[in-house]
């Protein structure tokens, strides 16, 4: 507890986790709003614009919290990770700077137009604002993922004379293969979050028997997009992520899978409890040789276990990593099943009358949030003990002049502010849900 590093890590992880609850809905909804506005333009039907207008209100509230929780993230590189910033700022500063220049300016300029500008703009103009916001938010996603990807798999750098990393190839760095894969997986996941939320709201109205046209529309859009993107999140993108980890961070893969021994025909553990002290999985249920296939494309390939690596290269919290990964992948499977069933009912025109399914859809919206958070835990804890994989250890990255007391104090400060923000968010979104879409549906 007296260790500053402990608090730096706690503070960063806590604030990043909280921040990410909001941008994932921003990015997912931005896409869905573009879809709704496009359908509205194409068909000329008012119900699409009504739905878009409702989601834009939610978007506005969500975005505001995303902005104010994002600002401290940017500062923490300097305040909490001074040595890390000094070491790698010449490279990750590039993407963080570009994020401001190319993405945040775009988003902040068009947000007001999207939320409050419908009356002043033509329908095409309003669609344009939605499009700009979608591009802006997905661009900001790319720059931040590229930053993170450099920490996972550094490329495009050379070691400078002063012992810091220097940019060697801008494009190699920006188009890091790790970033491309991570981006695809992550962005697909944001649409999953968005569609689960849309479907849950549709289900809620449907169960209450209010706003019927809108309930049906939201259910339809939410479940169809939900199914498509839930599948995409597992395959091909999740699968590619796994292969990336297998190739560049084999020790992380071993920890995620709870694999202690090396060997060919590695089985995939579906369930089981890792016991790190005795280096085995207890009560496992396994699929023989499947892990070898998933990781390297052949049942007979050799998947190294943790024993093949020196212990000072192991991620510190193997149990946590193992459970987080299995929660993500498990929920991913469950979410495909839920959406597949819902779409089946939709196709048979039985979704509106199937109360059990509606209940499931209404209550399932936390699943993607849990899965994305677990996913980040896998990414960030899996990277340990490195801050920059293979280059800089986490123990070397903190701020030398900041002590544990200060960081503990500010962490508590954040906890306080975040509680208030969380309550405000739920309260304001709850009000919008109770209002429903019609109340804003007067002709623009």
């Amino acid at each position: 507890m007296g260790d500053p590093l402990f608090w730096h890590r706690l503070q960063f992880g806590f604030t990043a986790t909280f921040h990410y609850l909001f941008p994932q809905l921003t990015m997912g909804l931005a896409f869905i709003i573009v879809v709704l506005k496009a359908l509205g333009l194409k068909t000329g039907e008012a119900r699409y614009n009504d739905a878009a207008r409702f989601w834009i209100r939610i978007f506005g509230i969500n975005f505001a919290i995303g902005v104010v929780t994002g600002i401290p993230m940017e500062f923490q590189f300097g305040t909490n990770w001074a040595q890390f910033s000094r070491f790698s700022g010449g490279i990750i500063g590039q993407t963080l700077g570009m994020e401001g220049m190319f993405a945040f300016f775009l988003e902040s300029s068009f947000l007001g137009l999207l939320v409050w500008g419908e009356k002043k703009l033509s329908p095409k103009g309003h669609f344009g604002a939605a499009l700009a916001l979608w591009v802006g938010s997905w661009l900001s996603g790319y720059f931040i993922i590229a930053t993170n990807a450099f920490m996972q798999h550094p490329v495009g750098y050379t070691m400078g004379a002063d012992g810091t990393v220097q940019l060697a190839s801008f494009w190699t760095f920006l188009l890091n293969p790790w970033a491309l894969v991570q981006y695809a997986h992550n962005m697909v996941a944001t649409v999953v979050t968005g569609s689960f939320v849309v479907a849950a709201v549709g289900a809620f109205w449907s169960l209450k028997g209010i706003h019927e046209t809108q309930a049906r529309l939201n259910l339809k859009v939410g479940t169809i997009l939900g199914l498509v993107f839930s599948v995409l999140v597992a395959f091909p993108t999740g699968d590619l992520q796994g292969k990336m980890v297998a190739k560049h961070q084999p020790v992380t893969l071993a920890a995620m899978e709870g694999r202690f021994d090396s060997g060919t025909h590695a089985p995939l553990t579906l369930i089981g409890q890792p016991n790190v002290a005795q280096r085995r999985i207890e009560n496992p249920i396994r699929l023989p040789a499947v892990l070898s296939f998933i990781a390297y494309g052949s049942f007979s390939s050799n998947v190294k276990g943790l024993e093949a690596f020196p212990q000072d290269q192991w991620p510190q919290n193997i149990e946590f990593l193992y459970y987080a990964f299995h929660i993500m992948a498990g929920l991913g499977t469950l979410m495909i099943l839920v959406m597949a069933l819902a779409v089946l009912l939709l196709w048979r025109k039985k979704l509106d009358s199937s109360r059990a399914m509606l209940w499931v859809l209404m209550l399932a919206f936390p699943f993607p949030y849990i899965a994305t958070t677990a996913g980040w835990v896998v990414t960030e804890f899996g990277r340990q003990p490195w801050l920059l994989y293979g280059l800089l250890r986490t123990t070397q990255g903190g701020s030398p002049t900041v002590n544990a007391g200060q960081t503990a104090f500010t962490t508590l400060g954040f906890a306080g502010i975040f509680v208030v923000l969380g309550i405000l968010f739920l309260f304001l979104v709850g009000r919008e849900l109770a209002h429903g879409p019609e109340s804003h549906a007067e002709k623009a």
Partner: protein
Amino acid sequence: MEMLWFWLVSVMVAIYVVLDGFDFGAGILHLFVAKTNEERREVLGAIGPLWDGNEVWLLAGGGSMFLAFPKVLASGFSGFYLAMWLVVWCLMLRGISIEFRSHLKDGLWRHFWDSTFAVSSILLPILFGAALGNVLRGVPVDGSGYFEMALWTNFRVGTHPGILDWYTVLIGVFALATLAGHGALFLAWKTEGPVHDRARALAMKLWGLVLVLWIVSSYATSIVNPGVFENLPKAPLGWLATLIFLAGLVLVFVGTKQARPLLAFIGSGAFILGLLAASAACVYPVMLRSTLDPAYSLTALNASVGGPGLRAGLVWWLIGFPIALGYFAFLFRFHRGKVKAAAEGEGY
């Protein structure tokens, strides 16, 4: 290249202060110039569509500093640790109060956010001013390139000063008055009726105060950092900056007298921009001056990341900067004219 980036970062920070400055100013003054709910919503309507974009200049400026001079960022942010978080918390509360105030029609709710908006808008310029004061006065950077500072010690200026001492507080108050004046001119330009009249009357008084504080602060700076002005006459950019801020000051008074609010507002923008640029010219190439030994100071030369990174950054900077200016031109045009409070349930 290092010199160019020193100026790019300085310019971005200065643009940030000019732009976010007017919405800080609106926040400082709104309790005084806008009395009714309608009037408050007029003020918020004037800055609502702009404040987030203005704040992005801080992020983009910070990002530019990160990529070009990471050693300065690392040392400064961790050295000012607690002050940094005060700034961030104020920014957070301010953003939320602008965005959420008008969501509910309840009087108590609105009073609460109005006060939060005012308090955070008053604290921020003082903190930013104090930050500038620290840069001009110097901080105890040692051989490791880092420093550690208490929020305040005995309020004296020495080799181990606090973040707040008499000098930095003075600069903080100067910043508060300047941004209040800047915001008053912005509101005079964008509003009509009672808000306009009150803002204009206040602007006159505030700018008188700014003039006095400017002279006092300049004198104080020459005491805490002797020789700081020696650079100025030697740098052509310093001359230019001085010209800009003096012209700005004249415009402020002329514009206010002749009831040409846009002219006065442009003048106050030029004053802030020029004054910050002149300060940058004074300290160049030092970014964090060491109070212990000039050899420990972090400068644009010894803290830079070196050629390849700076060159790559310049390429996208030159593309991104005009685009960003384009958005702002578009926004200001789109929202041109005087603001009116939006209907309930809409707008800010």
